């Protein structure tokens, strides 16, 4: 193993980080065919996050360890992983949360593994394409008040880390990817449906190919969201109500039709 010299390319222990101690990181190494966790010792300085440790390993021990990242500031949603059993962002998970423990870093579980910590999330991009885009009646500028956009803005905080997709049992355990778009795209649809200027109708999509009915409101998605979006409470439940109105309540359905002319 290479000598762990002080090379702060990966923002690892540097001068000033006096009380650097070692921790053990157990990282999944492998690809779609096979793999196992491998243990590494990493020097840890104050405030270091899991991503720093992985970078330190790449720079000093094994430059072939694959992981995705971009911003290292919890903005881009690239670095999702399973850290000691909890799905989270590697750049937002502090190592000092795990003092005295081995830190197990594994790829997200629901998506096929490409290599090490990198998974194939391309399915999400295919789903995104199936959702009818924002369709305003006229071009901007719009008059919209803050209260009209508050809810949409909540959903638009989404950084597409796909952690919610990763924990949703419909997608994970019942290989429901052909039946359900998953929580990320429920908030996408909710955002569009609740946009004051949108004229499109995605309710049939929700009830059909979108698979909203498969969600049984376990709220696991909401719990892992690093952006604290109330996925189930503010998006899925209202969408379910909307779909139920349309499909199960013929009188309201008629009423709605007449209203919208």
């Amino acid at each position, binding site marked *: 193993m290479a000598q762990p010299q002080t090379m*702060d390319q990966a923002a690892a222990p540097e001068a*000033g980080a006096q009380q650097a101690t070692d921790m053990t990181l157990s990282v999944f190494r492998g690809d779609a065919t096979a793999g196992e966790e491998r243990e590494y010792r990493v020097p840890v300085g104050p405030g270091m996050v899991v991503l720093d440790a992985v970078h330190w390993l790449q720079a000093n021990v094994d430059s072939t360890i*694959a992981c995705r990242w971009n911003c*290292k500031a919890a903005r881009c949603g690239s670095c999702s992983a399973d850290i000691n059993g909890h799905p989270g962002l590697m750049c937002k998970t502090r190592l000092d949360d795990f003092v005295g423990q081995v830190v197990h870093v594994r790829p997200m579980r629901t998506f096929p593994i490409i290599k090490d910590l990198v998974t194939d999330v391309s399915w999400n991009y295919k789903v995104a394409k199936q959702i009818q885009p924002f369709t305003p009646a006229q071009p*901007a500028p719009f008059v919209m008040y803050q209260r009209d956009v508050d809810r949409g803005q909540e959903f*638009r905080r989404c950084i597409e880390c796909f952690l919610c997709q990763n924990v949703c049992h419909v997608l994970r355990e019942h290989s429901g990817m052909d039946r359900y778009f998953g929580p990320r795209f429920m908030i996408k649809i909710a955002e569009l449906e609740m946009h004051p200027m949108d004229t499109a109708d995605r309710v049939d999509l929700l009830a059909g190919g979108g698979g909203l009915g498969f969600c049984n409101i376990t709220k696991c998605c909401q719990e892992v969201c690093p952006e604290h979006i109330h996925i189930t409470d503010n998006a899925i439940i209202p969408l379910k109500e909307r779909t139920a109105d349309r499909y199960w309540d013929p009188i309201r359905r008629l009423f709605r039709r007449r209203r919208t002319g």
Partner: protein
Amino acid sequence: METGMDSIERFEYDVLVLGAGGAGLRAAIGAAQDGVRVAVICKSLLGKAHTVMAEGGVAAAMGNVDPADGWQTHFYDTMRSGHFINNYRTAEIFAKEAPDRVFELESWGALFDRTPEGKIMQRPFGAHTFRRLCHVGDRTGLELIRTLQYKGIHCGIDIFQEVTTTRLLKDGERVAGAIGYERESGRFLLWRAKAVVLATGGWGKVYKVTSNSWESTGDGAAIAYRADAELQDMEMVQFHPTGMVWPPGVRGILVTEGVRGEGGILVNAEGRRFMQDYDPKRMELSSRDVVARSIHKEVQAGRGTPHGGAWLDITHRGAEFIRRKLPNMYDQFLHLADIDITKTKFEVAPTIHYTMGGVRADPETCATNVPGLFAAGEVACGLHGANRLGGNSLSDLLVFGRRAGEAAREYAMGLTVLPGVDDGEVRLEQERVLRPFAVEAGENPYQLHAELQQVMGEHAGIARDGASLQAGLDKIMALQERAGRIGVSGSRMYNPGWHTALDVGNMLLLCEAIFRGALAREESRGAQWRTDHPDELEDFGRINFVEYRDGDTMRLKTYPVSPMPPELAALFASDVAPGLATAPAVGPAAGGRE
């Protein structure tokens, strides 16, 4: 189809866009009309580009909160901040078109913060005369990229994600396409194209203390230079005054200017609000070069904070306000630094933020000197001069992304046949890209990256002088030698060591360009502060330094800055910004803040 040593998959397009940040996506949307076939190539997944990190806002003089604002004032602020080496025509087009580009985002689904009247809200920002930055809390870049991403996927554009371009191909003088590799497999891809739009962003990763994402290694600028494009104003590198300082792992992460825009004040270790000593008129909202230098000077004078910065304090705005207007900042400090910014002041220090220099581009079409090659966004040069105004980058991406895309489309439609590709050139490039695998016990790419960052921090920082710049250049040249012997191990599948090896080659080239420009510009102007030439000199205000390739040698030449026509020059006749004399006293420069 096989070419030489390694299989390669081939594609054909009319317009190829390199980059899926704001500029690349807007260019692709602009190009994909009239049946023109467009592909976008990006190093990361779609929607993850560096642009996603932008926080404070997008500058556009729509006058929603300060009706006296208008394009003339935005133009005026942009030229003044750029210390007049910007291309005036680029700045004029920019200021005139920015509002429409922001409205267009709204038409495509963006949800900006609103004024009480239901219009797009605008916040004050450093050196903008009026409140001008349209924003969504402190996550404006995310809003911009998501809007363009979801517009783009319905425009019939092919998107190659996690694919790195390594070279532009040429047919004589003309651009003919590009070659690259897929990160997942390491396989080569080749795109023949009639026109190429370069939108690959900046190179903030050549510094260690940086706010930039990993992608900012300047690939596009380096690739363009190797294809004989001209690089301009490379010495102009922006230090953002406020990056995080402590703990070490977060050093450099941005603290948005929005904190000061929303009323945050800077104080030194002695508790003095020191900006009153440097720019009493604009205080914390002075231009970035001034604020960054002021913090630097305070630290040099021994009045720095425990970890070598200044205190930033916004507690007086109250917890509710801070959490609503700056939610990411609140979260970022709480999570990464155990600091609650609603309760306590925090340390900040300058961090590398933006590269004003880049590929010289035409104001109207974004065309470069290489026929068929267009450049937009941070990789391009012309708009910002010696110092970029906050918020001007996001509108730059929109205005010139669109122009580059549309110009590339028109250019492509004017060509009847695809330019030819030289298989020999392709084979040489494949050899170059794969070389690190053949080197045994070679140089460690991460080590070289760390060393080049060290050199840049030491010799091309905020304060520069001739002797130190020369020493830095010598060190970079020595690192370039060593980079020829970089070795990597493992397979071509998703191999970060290999990727870094290629990035380092690009970064070293741009480091050289930064040093050469900084040495030649024997004056202080905007972001360039030469302690051995502390004054801004009229003669240097009339030229841009341009670097170009001569075989394997980098050469430097100058172009004259084109003079403004009389009606624009007249805007600068008095010291008062246009619109200000008649403006109600609400803008920051009008003394409307405490």
